[in-house]
């Protein structure tokens, strides 16, 4: 049964399809903002299908095992998060205490795989990409976790189901002052986690020619793309569960779309930051604000 959950619904397959649709919405809306027409509806799936018929090229100086395993592990771990997050909505019996922290840690794995994989590619540009990805992870995780402490303080729970129950009774966490501050900061961190502008620093198409992904081709790249699509669904839903719950009705789809639009707007109204600026903004700009939100949460606001 759990294998079904994992592979089909709400795990890999469902999230992948939703992710593809979300990705299409993203591209289409981006195109509209840029006064273009945009891609056809099935474009994200065409892209994936295409990648899976392409040849795989492996760089000469790479560490083959790590280079090839990274995309798959990244995709497998994201599927687990999808299962955990999704099961909370479908079948709460499977939830366990502390799944919040487990999810956060599991969400680190795609970044980790990207770092290892691109570092193993033996290409200076992808190594720079790896180093940037690592620095980016450092910079956003601090603020991200600080913000996650707010719901923990408010509810004394680290179980997503309990968080949602709490919100069902007492209203969304984001409706309080500390909650809304934390929520906004997590949205910015989510942007960084998704690797979207202004935080697409590791990929930096025009600086590093694809940066961390530069050497990946064919299905390997495809797995990374799938990971990206799935992240585009999981992360907002995860945040919704924590901050803007409960999500059990059809209204929550609207909530998700709102978050998605916020992501897209952020993406299209900003240039890419430099890694130094990103670290500075997130550590010295957002982290203190996040600490303030914790203080507010302790004070019960």
């Amino acid at each position, binding site marked *: 049964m759990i294998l079904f959950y994992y592979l089909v619904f709400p795990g890999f397959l469902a999230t992948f399809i939703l992710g593809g649709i979300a990705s299409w919405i993203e591209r289409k809306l981006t*195109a509209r903002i840029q006064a273009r027409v*945009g891609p056809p509806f099935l*474009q994200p799936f065409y892209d994936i299908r*295409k990648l899976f018929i392409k040849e795989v*090229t492996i760089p000469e100086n790479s560490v083959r095992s790590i280079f090839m395993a990274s995309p798959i592990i990244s995709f497998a771990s994201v599927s687990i998060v999808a299962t955990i997050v999704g099961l909370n909505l479908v079948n709460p019996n499977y939830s366990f205490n502390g799944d919040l922290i487990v999810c956060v840690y599991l969400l680190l794995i795609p970044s980790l795989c990207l770092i290892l994989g691109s570092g193993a590619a033996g290409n200076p540009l992808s190594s720079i990409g790896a180093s940037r990805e690592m620095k980016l992870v450092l910079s956003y995780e601090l603020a991200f976790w600080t913000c996650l402490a707010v719901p923990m303080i408010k509810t004394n729970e680290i179980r997503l189901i309990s968080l949602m129950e709490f919100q069902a009774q007492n209203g969304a966490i984001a409706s309080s002052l500390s909650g809304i501050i934390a929520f906004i900061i997590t949205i910015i961190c989510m942007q960084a986690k998704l690797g979207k502008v202004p935080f697409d620093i590791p990929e930096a198409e025009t600086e590093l020619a694809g940066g961390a992904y530069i050497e990946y081709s064919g299905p390997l790249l495809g797995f990374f793309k799938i990971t990206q699509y799935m992240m585009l669904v999981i992360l907002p839903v995860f945040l919704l569960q924590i901050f803007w719950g409960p999500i059990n009705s059809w209204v929550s789809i609207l909530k998700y779309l709102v978050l998605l639009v916020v992501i897209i707007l952020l993406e299209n109204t900003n240039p890419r930051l430099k890694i130094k600026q990103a670290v500075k903004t997130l550590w010295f700009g957002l982290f203190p604000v996040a600490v303030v939100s914790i203080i507010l949460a302790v004070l019960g606001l």
Partner: protein
Amino acid sequence: MNKGKILSRSIWVFHFCSGSCNNCDIEILDALTPRFDLERFGIKLVGSIKHADCMLVTGMINKKGATRLKFLYDIAPKPLAVVAIGACACSGGIFEPSYYTYGPVDKIIPVDAYIPGCPARPEALIDGIVKVVKKLST
């Protein structure tokens, strides 16, 4: 399903320029921008040859470019379509008699389509790429 058809739905292009006057390159970019918008056809410009399905070659291919063109063609994951864009890439164009011309493109790598013009207009580019697509899907 045949590979070409799958490929034709999503063509990621890599842009190679060697000894062009820049206009074809600009027109390639132009084809991505609002008036022409190649993304409608799933066409996307990528920065790494390893992501590419189609290489757009412009310019008369000079000595430096010729070796690198071959190199890039070799390391690109196949299947890879090659499109020669502009008069220079198709034939050497105005630069053909130069001492530094080692092109045109089809002297170095196999070419799937030729899009002439000086520069090739975005409409011509779209038409050419659409024909590549058609060719791939048959």
